[in-house]
């Protein structure tokens, strides 16, 4: 009698463990992959009070369009504005913003991006980004590709974007 009971309890415990195993596996151990852009310790480039961190572009083939991403930090006392960008690998470079309108993704060219004094602006997935349109050549992972950013105050700043695989 005792043995049967014990066996039954064991069976029930195992059953419960099996059943709860899958749906509950991720409770309490959510790892966050959306931590955003990795901040490098040192700026890749600094000019006129602006510091540029983590410049990168996604790989693309000739004729394709790809995105460039970076973070601009303004250490100066006055605001600055990113007016345009120009990348040698692309026929056309524009600065765009991705906007979600409900479930609909929209991209629009932006006139300028203001970087407030002491502030920071991230060009990242789902927000502002540099559009390298109609690539003249393949842009391969592991290489770098140069883009010149034009600022209202800091003038022209050339950065090397590290190309990442898609």
């Amino acid at each position: 009698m005792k043995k049967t009971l014990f066996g039954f309890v064991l069976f029930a415990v195992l059953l419960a463990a099996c059943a709860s195993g899958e749906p509950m596996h991720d409770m309490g151990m959510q790892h966050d992959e959306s931590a955003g852009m990795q901040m490098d310790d040192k700026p890749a480039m600094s000019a006129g009070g602006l510091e540029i961190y983590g410049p990168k572009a996604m790989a693309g083939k000739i004729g394709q369009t790809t995105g460039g991403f970076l973070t601009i930090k303004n250490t100066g006392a006055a605001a600055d504005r990113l007016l345009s960008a120009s990348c040698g690998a692309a026929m056309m470079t524009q600065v765009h913003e991705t906007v979600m309108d409900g479930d609909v993704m929209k991209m629009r060219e932006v006139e300028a991006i203001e970087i407030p004094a002491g502030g920071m602006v991230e060009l990242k997935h789902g927000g502002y980004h540099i559009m390298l349109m109609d690539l003249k050549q393949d842009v391969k992972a592991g290489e770098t590709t140069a883009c010149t950013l034009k600022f209202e105050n800091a003038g022209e700043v050339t950065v090397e974007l590290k190309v990442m695989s898609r």
Partner: protein
Amino acid sequence: MNRQNLFFVVLVVLLIVGIAIFQLTMPPTLRGTVIEPPKPMPNFTLQSANGPVSLSDFRGKIVVLYFGYTSCPDVCPTTLASLRQALNDLGEKADEVQLVFVAVDWQKDTPERVASYLDAFHPDFVGLSGTQEQIDAVTKDFFIFYQINPPDENGYYTVDHTATMQVLDREGRLMLTWPYGLTADELLDDLKVLVRK
């Protein structure tokens, strides 16, 4: 064993069995939006780089349907890369899941261009193109909004489109939608549940 002990053991057993039954009968929570009951969807045939492909070709597989365009540098690649990551983590069972990408930019996205774009993500992803009439019909059938915006002075344009992924069950019925922005881990959680069915 005295009566009191027996009573206690029985109580514990009942509790555990109760929890087990509750866990087994409760539908698992999904990250996406569940369509209940699953909605039968019309078939379509569009052009891939390897010839015409119909949605019905994938009966028996779970189909993830995504509408985008190849000049999309931001949202589309993020979505495709997340799904690729989820499929890689899913392991062998990933064979039961097929991504179908429909290019809504009928002006520019030829089957070859779409294939070259998708190739950067996953060799098994299928990319499809169509004429304006075909794309209009398919997007309407699948509740997808898209709009090719007027070109700028240099002829460049953007395309607005619904960024939601749609999941069809093995009988081709719409059963789940994934909003834009789910992480690879969240997609993986749902895929694990879907392939068990």
